[in-house]
């Protein structure tokens, strides 16, 4: 079974993240890591491969060339190789553009299953799988909390606003998994050492057959018009527990008259 996992490098959450007021784009200069929810998708891919007894797990991403540093974590967990589409002309791609690039990169891989995590932590997006499935003309099931694959058919359980759905679909299919589906494994030291040697292909837009007019800002259909000054939670604080965290929480609650 061949499983592709779409992953994304994101800026680390926290007070240091900002949008550049000049360009209206996210300032991507800070620390970055693999989108946390993608780890559940990678874990599920590894389990599907293990259950099938053979196969391949390929990580597919669109991002800056240095995103490989983050993506390597998935290789350390056990994925077999990575394909990163990286091209200056792809900067600023929105859903329309990104889904086109990912779909073209995925077509070259012909996977049986395409997996996504439940959201990206940077833009709070939770729609990419539906757009990619549409472009690949594959069935899609999202928010999966239980997954079974047997005889070329998947059966998935997922929570909606009204209860639980059980949905079946034939392979190939696009599946987006909830973070409740599994507990992502930690990379072993051996995995981390071995990750560097696994194939990591960096491809340009033309390598995956995408015309530059369909990627980046040229291929995007949405725009940021303006930004307003920070609002809401002004003086938020983040502390590391040094043994006194409980006392600090109590002091904070007392100060706010909540205890």
């Amino acid at each position, binding site marked *: 079974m061949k499983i592709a996992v779409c992953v994304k490098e994101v800026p680390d959450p926290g007070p240091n993240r900002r949008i550049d007021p000049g360009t209206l784009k996210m300032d991507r200069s800070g620390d970055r890591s693999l989108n946390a929810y993608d780890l559940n998708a990678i874990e599920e891919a590894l389990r599907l491969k293990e259950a099938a007894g053979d196969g391949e797990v390929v990580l597919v991403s669109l991002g800056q060339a240095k995103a490989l540093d983050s993506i390597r974590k998935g290789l350390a967990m056990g994925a077999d190789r990575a394909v990163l589409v990286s091209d200056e002309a792809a900067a600023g791609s929105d*859903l329309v553009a990104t*889904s086109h690039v990912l779909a073209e990169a995925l077509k070259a891989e012909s996977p049986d299953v395409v997996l996504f995590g439940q959201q990206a932590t940077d833009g709070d997006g939770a729609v990419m799988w539906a757009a990619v499935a549409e472009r690949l003309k594959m069935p899609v099931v*999202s928010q999966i909390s239980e997954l079974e694959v047997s005889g070329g058919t998947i059966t998935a359980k997922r929570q909606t606003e009204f209860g639980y759905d*059980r949905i079946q679909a034939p392979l190939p299919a696009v599946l987006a998994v909830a973070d409740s589906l599994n507990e992502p494994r930690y990379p072993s030291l051996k995995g981390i050492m071995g990750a560097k040697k696994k194939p990591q292909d960096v491809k340009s837009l033309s390598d995956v057959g995408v015309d530059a007019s369909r990627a980046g800002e040229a291929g995007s259909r*949405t725009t940021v018009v303006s930004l307003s000054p920070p609002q809401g939670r002004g003086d938020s*604080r983040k502390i590391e527990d040094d043994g006194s965290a409980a006392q600090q929480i*109590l002091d904070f*609650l007392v100060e706010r008259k909540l205890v």
Partner: protein
Amino acid sequence: MSTLVFLEHHGSSIQKGSLGVLSKAAAIDPDTSAVLVGSGVAGLAEQAGKYGAKTVFVADGEAVAAPLPQPRVDIVSRLVQEKGFGNVLFAASVLASDVAGGVSARLDAGLNWDLNDLAMDGGALVGKRSALGDTISADVGWTTEPRLALIRAGSFEPKENGGSASVESIGTDLEDFSSKAVMVEQLQEQASGPSIEEADILVTGGRGLGSPEGFQLMEELASAIGGAVASTRAVVDSGWYPYATQIGQTGKVVSPKLYIGCGVSGAIQHKVGMQTSQVIVSINKDPNAPIFDFSDLGVVGDLQAIVPQLTALVKERRGS
């Protein structure tokens, strides 16, 4: 300019969120219509007229009975192309998000999500959303039509405007790949039990508790501080705690005076259910957890150590 609103229904009523978006759309664009897809839904169409839809397009048939996204992508995309709608609006839900994503790719139409307000600026639709953990507010736009938007749950209240809709039947022809996913069963959940919506203080346990037993720590803290215990989709999905206590898009929307999140990552699905809490305190061992973006006090640490200490300190403080 004309606007189409996707209506989601459950049983014999149209979802409040859909009617809220329809009311807002009608208020900013008099040329607003709606689309309703399902089996036996023709009777619901007239409801939509009261909330401002000029025309309600109804795709009624067994083939579209199950609430699955891809058949709806076919129907909505075809309708938008035939009628030339400039704006297509969705109230965010598990179903509507997947429909919107599919329509975006089918029509190469821009989609802005998580919007909490809409406005017209010189005839052009402008969406408003907050970003980066609600620390910044952005006005977002579209470079081409149709403009697609997913509206955050609870942004608009339904308002009857005394109008009435003409109902127009449309076809339910589907692409081959759109009917490959099938609904096997739908299980209803009873949202009964203790009400987390009434509590002033909520102690919320997430997947970071590590096991169902972790909820004992939540219950002890809640009891000491005078609050109720709430949960996340992840732990409910895992069977650790009852559905009735779940906060989020597919659970309850709460705004307590104090929200304490323990081992809660802060996924958007959870955040939309608790972001209006007055004070948010979170404890998580992962320094990159998104919840730290919208916490007043974020603590990076081991909740198994911190929570019992906090419970003891609160008991001491309250003299109990």
